């Protein structure tokens, strides 16, 4: 909303600098986004001049040389000014800009020579002053102000304009008078009586037109008046200038009046050429599906049954509350005008303008809900202006089809409640003063106030809390002390799982990984690139969650995996020359909540998933690419990040969470594995005997352009954390210090196809279900070669033994070692050395 201060101050003038006016409005809730200067600058360079003589330019047919009297403003006689306007003539009082004048477009006028004649200024048109339309000539001041008079004293050539951000609950502030009332409340400066106080019109029957409202629930009030002998023409400059400053284009005086009334009162109006209203009758009705209407902007609109149109005898003429139709628009030859001010259902107007993608100043006001009372405010102001500006004659009577007006809303404002919500006292007299300044009626009622809400605030103020806000915002939030809540019994603490999640992130950072934050959105083709030949059957496609209104095809799915965004982040860096990448991401992945999920995985789908149909999981993804460490002058060739480098990261996560290889481990896929992983260099991540994700080197076909080989992993983060929490809960102190552990290293040759994990678990189970001495088994060397034999490999195992209450001897571990050897032999193994 653009508010010219020149207009605003007519109703409330606090005699403050414009910046201070803006500050007061902002601090009481009407935010001033910007203060624009509208019109000319260096106003003392704009004067009234009187043309003494006009003679032809010696060198140009279309130019004339004028001698202009500038009165006392110019000591050395009349000025010489070259003018090209056809209507310039001696005897005219005209608007002059002298060199140094700043024009509305910001340009500075300089002294000029036009075809050899020096011009000491410029004779201005209304358009050049930006106070009226282009009428093809210079502006002639009809009431002949004296030469040398400051132009700003006779014409609105400059004003400041406040650009307001009006919140959707305050359609009353989409009006100059409404803003004036806010300024009045904010500054206590007096407020002029409303411009609709005097109504030149009369109530009673109006015969000139017949109106039927077929859908009163969508049109609670429809009012109309008829004007005759209307002289349609350009608006006077004061009116045109205000519209231009407020951001509107003047059209003709009748249309301009409707816009002026809307800007002043907040109530949109529509003017019909009554002679073009077929049958002199109007019907307000719901549109029919598929019906079309050409609106004032020349567009043919297809309507639906939820929209409201106004018909005359030959069909729809306007789209109610949004835009008029072309057929009955007021033109130069119009003589009889029907002036309509109606009240429309806000939600219906909102739906119509959204559906058609058509927003107008009128719809922007109606959709927020206007009070039916405001119709007559608009009619009263329009009646006056039609007479003064268009010399029109108002027919007696007002057509007024009105649903019963809502009863006055009375609310109680409890002093104690006000104090308890704000945390500060506001004197009762001050409460009364504030509410009255905002047009509320107030009666004292003991400690409390009984408050009647004015019609224009009905949509916004309906409860005591709303009144508290009114008092608080005007009284000044600066006055509030800064206190802290008492916080009885409340304490701040991260939950155990939040702490563990932070620990994992910190551990990954400590292991040299960079955290990335990727996009939640991805495309179907991106998922297909990962799921490859199983695109039709893979969970990621079959249970993908689609956005109904995505910004683009690229963003039409919610990601089922972090792999895609990790790959994108990696590719972004790789193509920019950063070769060694160690990335991780924590984020949500999405799938449709599958039927039967519960039985399949044993995981209960959450309450939220039941409500939304979408299963959300917090996921942890890791991607490695390039060398594991930066190369240096001592060590040129660094190891490339492969499966084992990544598994090291997985083990670091386990270590950070105190869950070792017994709990968090990798196993070959039991089923067919993942299509985006190398079939033989990947596996399933098992945590507490449940699969929680995958780990492996990526399938070459799953990689992005510019990106070489990658190893990646994705885990169900919450499942991992839950296991770690359960383990943490069971943790008790163990004495590992009083009695040292005993270490034995053995090497065993086994068939190469026996997985290391099987060897490890066989050794660990050698003592039987209850381990007593053997604490841990670590594989510290793997060797295959000619000494070992084809198809076999040697694993070196480091065994550690400990007893709770004594120092172990060789004799103690010998029987366990024997059992271990037996287990290894059962796997086809043979002790070496």
């Amino acid at each position, binding site marked *: 909303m653009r508010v010219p201060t020149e207009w605003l101050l007519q109703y409330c003038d606090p005699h403050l600098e414009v910046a201070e006016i803006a500050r007061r409005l902002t601090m009481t809730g009407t935010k001033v986004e910007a203060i624009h200067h509208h019109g000319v600058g260096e106003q003392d360079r704009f004067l009234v001049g009187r043309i003494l003589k006009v003679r032809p330019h010696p060198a140009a047919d279309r130019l004339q040389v004028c001698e202009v009297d500038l009165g006392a403003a110019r000591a050395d006689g009349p000025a010489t000014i070259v003018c090209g306007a056809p209507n310039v003539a001696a005897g005219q009082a005209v608007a002059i800009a002298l060199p140094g004048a700043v024009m509305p477009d910001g340009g500075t006028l300089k002294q000029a020579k036009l075809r050899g004649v020096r011009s000491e200024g410029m004779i201005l048109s209304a358009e050049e002053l930006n106070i009226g339309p282009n009428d093809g000539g210079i502006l002639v001041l009809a009431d002949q102000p004296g030469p040398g008079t400051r132009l700003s004293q006779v014409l609105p050539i400059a004003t400041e304009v406040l650009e307001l951000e009006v919140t*959707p609950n305050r359609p009353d502030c989409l009006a100059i008078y409404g803003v004036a009332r806010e300024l009045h409340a904010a500054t206590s400066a007096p407020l002029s009586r409303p411009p609709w106080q005097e109504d030149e019109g009369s109530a009673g029957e109006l015969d000139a037109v017949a109106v039927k409202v077929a859908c009163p629930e969508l049109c609670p009030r429809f009012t109309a008046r008829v004007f005759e002998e209307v002289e349609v023409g350009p608006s006077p400059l004061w009116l045109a200038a205000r519209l231009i400053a407020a951001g509107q284009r003047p059209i003709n005086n009748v249309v301009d009046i409707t816009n002026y009334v809307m800007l002043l009162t907040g109530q949109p109006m529509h003017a019909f050429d009554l002679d073009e209203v077929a049958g002199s009758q109007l019907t307000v009705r719901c549109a029919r599906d598929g019906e079309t209407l050409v609106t004032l902007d020349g567009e043919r609109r297809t309507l639906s049954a939820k929209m409201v149109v106004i018909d005359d005898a030959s069909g729809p003429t306007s789209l109610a509350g949004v835009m008029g139709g072309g057929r009955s628009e007021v033109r130069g030859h119009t003589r009889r005008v029907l002036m309509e001010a109606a009240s429309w259902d806000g939600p219906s107007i909102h739906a119509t303008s959204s559906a058609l993608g058509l927003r107008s100043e009128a719809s922007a006001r109606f959709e927020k809900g206007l009070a039916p009372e405001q119709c007559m405010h608009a009619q009263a102001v329009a009646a006056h202006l039609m007479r003064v500006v268009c010399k029109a004659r108002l027919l007696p009577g007002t057509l007024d089809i009105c649903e019963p007006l809502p009863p006055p809303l009375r609310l109680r404002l409890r002093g104690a409640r006000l104090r308890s919500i704000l945390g500060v006292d506001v004197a009762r007299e001050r409460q009364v003063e504030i509410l009255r300044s905002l047009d509320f009626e107030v009666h004292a009622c003991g400690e409390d106030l009984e408050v009647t809400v004015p019609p224009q605030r009905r949509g916004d103020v309906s409860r005591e809390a709303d009144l508290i806000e009114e008092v608080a915002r005007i009284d000044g939030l600066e006055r509030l002390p800064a206190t802290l809540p008492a916080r009885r019994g409340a304490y701040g603490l991260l939950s155990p799982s939040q702490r563990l999640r932070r620990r994992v992130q910190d551990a990954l950072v400590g292991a040299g990984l960079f955290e990335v934050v990727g996009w939640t959105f991805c495309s179907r083709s991106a998922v297909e690139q990962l799921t490859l030949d199983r695109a039709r059957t893979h969970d990621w496609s079959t249970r993908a969650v689609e956005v109904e209104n995505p910004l683009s095809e690229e963003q039409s799915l919610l990601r089922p995996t972090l792999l895609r965004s990790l790959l994108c982040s990696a590719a972004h860096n790789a193509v920019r020359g950063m070769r060694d990448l160690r990335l991780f991401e924590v984020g949500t992945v999405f799938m449709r909540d599958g039927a039967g999920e519960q039985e399949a995985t044993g995981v209960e789908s959450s309450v939220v998933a039941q409500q939304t149909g979408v299963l959300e999981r917090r996921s942890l993804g890791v991607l490695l690419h390039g060398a594991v460490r930066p190369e240096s002058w001592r060590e040129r060739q660094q190891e490339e990040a492969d499966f084992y480098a990544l598994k090291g990261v997985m083990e670091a996560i386990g270590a950070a969470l105190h869950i070792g290889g017994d709990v968090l481990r990798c196993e070959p896929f039991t089923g067919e594995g993942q299509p985006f992983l190398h079939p033989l260099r990947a596996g399933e991540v098992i945590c507490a005997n449940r699969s929680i994700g995958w780990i492996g080197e990526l399938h070459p076909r799953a990689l992005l352009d510019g990106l070489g080989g990658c190893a990646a992993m994705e885990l169900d983060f919450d499942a991992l954390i839950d296991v770690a929490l359960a383990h943490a809960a069971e943790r008790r102190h163990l004495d590992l210090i009083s009695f040292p552990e005993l270490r034995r290293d053995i090497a065993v040759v086994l068939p190469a196809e026996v997985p290391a994990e099987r060897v490890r678990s066989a050794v660990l189970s050698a003592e039987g279900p209850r381990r007593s001495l053997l604490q841990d088994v670590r594989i510290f060397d793997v060797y295959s070669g000619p000494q070992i034999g084809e198809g076999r490999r040697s694993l070196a195992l480091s065994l550690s033994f400990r007893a709770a209450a004594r120092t172990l001897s060789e004799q103690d571990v010998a029987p366990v070692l024997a059992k271990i050897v037996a287990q290894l032999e059962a796997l086809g193994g043979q002790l070496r050395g």
Partner: protein
Amino acid sequence: MRELTEKARAEIAAAGSSAQLEQVRVRYLGRRAELPLLLRGVAQLPPEQRAEVGRQANLARRDLEALIAERMETLAVGEMQGRLAADAIDVTLPGSPTVPVGRLHVLTQTTRELEDIFLGLGFTVLEGPEVETVHYNFDALNHGKTHPARARTDTFYLSNEVVLRTHTSPMQIRAMEAHPPPLYVVIPGRVFRPDSDATHTPQFHQIEGLAVDEDITLADLKGTLLAFARAVFGDERQVRLRPHFFPFTEPSVEVDVSCFQCSGSGSMRDGSRCALCKGEGWLEVLGAGEVDPNVYSAVPDTERNAPGYDPEKVQGYAWGMGIERIAMLKHGIPDLRLYFENDLRFLGQFG
């Protein structure tokens, strides 16, 4: 014997290394050397000569031992110096890299910082679903049926009843459903709106605060946010509450923090206009207010929070801020899109 001693002295002095000296020692003092043999031969001398010869021989031996020890010391120092000199390195060459330092994402860092501030103020941290129902995202938060935020131009829909949350506020309702008052929580998380330009990305992050108790006032909101502003932007900061409108708070305010670049003056020391606050002296940082009574009414009475959130018995405040915006202000990050590009040269500067 004198001759022998003189010869030994000369050889000791001539020994150029500890190894040579050791050979000299073995030659003169070793088990088979001349001097010990001489000493052993003393026994065969007549008794009156024994004592004298023995004494002389011992003296000579001690003398040589001392000489050798002294010479050994001198040689050892020299040899040590020689060895160290051979170990010389160029200390100005780069060190061997350890595992390179990783970084948390600047959004995670900022979120943690904010969480920690409010943990210190007695709040706990909750997280909520990113896919929400229209009920939690709009209805329960007092958004009218025609509120513009519901439009498909302003909200991503998965179906007519399911959306990507447009703010973290739905968790206000879920938190109240799950916990009886008093309630002090902050809710960080990712939110979504269908905007994409220099100042909007379709995903971004918010942190929401909610405190509900018997007597939480607007002044308490101001105090809480003043603590936040000072913790994040410096001890000198002030906050300013401006009236505003949000459907789920009443009264509603926007909260400005005094500009930390120009100390709230709007201009820099050289007189130029402060670019951060555009000369305003204030930075718009967040929206807040006292929880609207209709929001409490949207929380169903359950056994857990019976008698529920009765707006006549409880009151409190809520606030929400953009995490990207806080990080932008704090670190001078110029473009939202940098957050999600994950360029290592960007990420490496934070976290």
